[in-house]
């Protein structure tokens, strides 16, 4: 077996084990909360008899281990149960919301990742000179702004002063792709502002690191232009740390943008989770928690594997 293939299988297996562990932790966390699902449904009107009936009906009278495996079995087959608050099928509700989350994250990533890499390379090329300083200053400023401040700022600038976009980013099925892009323009701008600096700084640092190597000196002596050296010789060798930072930021774009979603009324997973946490709708919280964990673990596996593949020493073992 090729060592890379072996590594790949190992990582994926590890990821699955991790996900299983996370599912157990989520289940235990919800179990540890005072009261149970039946009490949450019945609320003030709970009588002992009604509680007992509902528990039997929902299988809550079974031991915790049995319920955990039942829940896990449901998750495996795509059955996440029904929301307590409004009886909507969770898998269906999440399906659409997850699509919106990924759409927003995707749009932001498509702009932010190439932009960060290019700006990082330019900053490295002109290290210590004015383009480097301008790029660093601007991106550090945007990352330092709290998200909601940045959001209010772009709302004011781009809907009131220059009315080019809409402040409310609600998307729905049946909207054309172009209309969707227009709707999410403002949240995408805010998210790009937030994630740009981290990736840009890492690209710059990683490139500068390999710029000290002997083979770069050789390339310079060959008379190659600085930008060619960076793209052809420095960047491929600096890519591993950049990939892991990119993966962290992509994961953040999926699971960590609830503030931006709320400000722009964007109907994605974060807002859905927050609404159900306030109403103590536990099955939904469990399901969304598991999805967020899966995204995080998945992106980290991808980052791991790509940086391994990008490393020539691992790609061509002796």
């Amino acid at each position: 077996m090729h060592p890379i293939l072996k590594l790949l299988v190992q990582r994926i297996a590890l990821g699955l084990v991790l996900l299983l562990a996370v599912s157990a932790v989520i289940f235990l966390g919800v179990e540890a909360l005072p009261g149970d699902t039946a009490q949450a449904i019945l609320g003030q009107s709970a009588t002992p008899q009604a509680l007992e009936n509902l528990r039997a009906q929902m299988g809550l009278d079974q031991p915790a281990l049995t319920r955990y495996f039942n829940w896990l079995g449901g998750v495996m087959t795509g059955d996440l149960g029904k929301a307590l608050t409004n009886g909507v099928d969770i898998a269906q509700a999440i399906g659409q919301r997850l699509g919106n989350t990924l759409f927003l994250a995707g749009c932001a990533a498509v702009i932010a990742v190439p932009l960060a890499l290019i700006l990082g390379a330019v900053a490295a090329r002109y290290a210590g000179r004015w383009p480097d300083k301008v790029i660093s200053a601007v991106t550090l400023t945007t990352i330092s702004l709290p998200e909601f401040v940045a959001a209010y700022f772009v709302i004011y600038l781009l809907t009131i002063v220059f009315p080019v976009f809409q402040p409310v980013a609600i998307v729905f099925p049946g909207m054309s792709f172009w209309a969707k892009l227009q709707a999410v323009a403002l949240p995408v701008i805010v998210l790009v502002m937030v994630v740009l600096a981290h990736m840009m700084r890492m690209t710059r640092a990683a490139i500068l690191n390999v710029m000290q190597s002997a083979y770069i000196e050789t390339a310079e002596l060959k008379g190659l232009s600085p930008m060619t050296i960076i793209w052809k010789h420095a960047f491929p060798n600096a890519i591993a740390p950049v990939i892991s930072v990119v993966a962290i930021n992509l994961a953040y774009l999926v699971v960590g943008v609830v503030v931006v979603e709320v400000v722009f009324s964007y109907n994605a997973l974060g807002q859905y989770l927050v609404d159900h946490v306030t109403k103590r709708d536990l099955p939904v919280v469990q399901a969304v928690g598991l999805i967020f964990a899966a995204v995080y673990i998945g992106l980290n596996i991808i980052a791991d594997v790509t940086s391994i593949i990008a490393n020539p020493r691992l790609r061509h073992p002796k």
Partner: protein
Amino acid sequence: MSEKLDWMVARARAGKMNRREFIGRTTAMGVSAALASALFTKAAHAEAKKGGTIRVGLAGGESTNTLDPALAASVVPQVGNAQWGEQLVDMKPDGTIDFRIGEEVSSSPDSKVWTFKIRQGVTFSNGAPVTAEDVLATFKRHTDEQAQSGALGIVKGITDMKAEGDKLTLTLDAPSADLPYLLTDYHLIIQPGGGYDNPNAGIGAGPYILETFEPGVRYVLQKNPNHWDPNTGHADTVEILSINDNTARTAALQSGQVHIINRIDPKIAQLLAGAPGVEVRRAVGRGHYVFIMHVDKAPFDNNDLRMALKLAVKREEMVEKVLGGLGSVGNDFPINAAYPLFDDSIPQREYDAAAAKAAYDKSGHDGSPIILRTAPGAFPGAVDAANLFAASAQAAGIPLQIQLEPDDGYWTNVWNVQPFCASYWGGRPVQDQMYSTAYLSTAEWNDTRFKNAKFDELLLAARAELDETKRKADYSEMAHIVRDEGGLILPMFNEFVAGIRSAEIGGWVDDPNAEMMNYRAPSKCWLV
């Protein structure tokens, strides 16, 4: 002059001037009151424009919402339901009954048995006719504990229901002249078969038909071509967006993404009113902010001391500084002009340092500090209001002191427990319900411990009284009793503050019954 008159007629036609304002301003120009009234009636009934899409952006929607009218508890579902649903009866902005599915009503002389005639030829959006049986089944479902209806307290007093042909007869456990008003509750939307099969079906007899519902995101509704009432449902399509963030909602109105928004922050209302194309509309509601004293506990068991405190409130200042001017002064009884049968001849209580001092001296209070408990969550601006109160009371020589309490547990440890604290009340549709909830001797939530035999007698007499003049006199007397002897200090009523794109929206009326023109703005307004 005629140019100015034309302008005012145009404003009235667009719904931007109410009858009182219109008549006041035109008579000031020398037009006779009778002519002014006729002009207004003509203008206000000008043809509403049909067609287009009205978009409304509202705070108060969650992804946990449902279509079940029994469970509606926040504004987005309330407004959404009012578009696809229709009720037996509804409130008009002037506080009279708007007959909807119920065409007319009559009662037995003791106001214990009520008969509604059901409007014929009305159909649900699924094509089935609306019958007396549907109305009966709807009320029955709301009396069922399992439905968890917010209207349970209202319908549980109905002991017997009968549907015969186009008549629905309701028998009450005790006389109530207010039953039609109580049935205007927004939960009581008529559903086919009472909604027993599927309370979340979203099938009703309203001016619009539900097309899309995404909880906490949006409603899309299309005009109901078979709706019986031509005065509602003007636009072809209504879109309701749930926008909980204040800044985004305001920006959506300013940029024209929506035509109407609710809950404008008092802090920015002034600024927004100056923005182009946008108008801030205010409706005095029935909700009020209060300081409540337990009349059975020292030192508040002394009416002179209570009167001293009532006279020591600078009400105008409080409305200005705490509500940003978006409210009106209260008069120490829980009723204002938004209620039917309100007596506007009761004199307004004003700040009077000398009279307060005199009443305080007469009470013989020993000069020890009088403690007023408050918390940020008692009502928005409660701490500021309490500080203003303390300052004006101290200026009158009354040793009033503030004690700040934490929000956590305020409603269990302070309200209804401590003898003097800040609190709030939402309004009720009628005076009887408001007084019965908190001022009757036996009321569960009698948070001033007010027990007055004469008051109780008047309340029960008024409840069964069908003669409106007599009822009004009873309510006036009750108001005087609470105002002059009660433990209630009521400095201000709050307002519903909405924003509309004034050049695009016609038909807006400042409705005191509830937010968003009693939740019906999307179907009662039209696109100009």
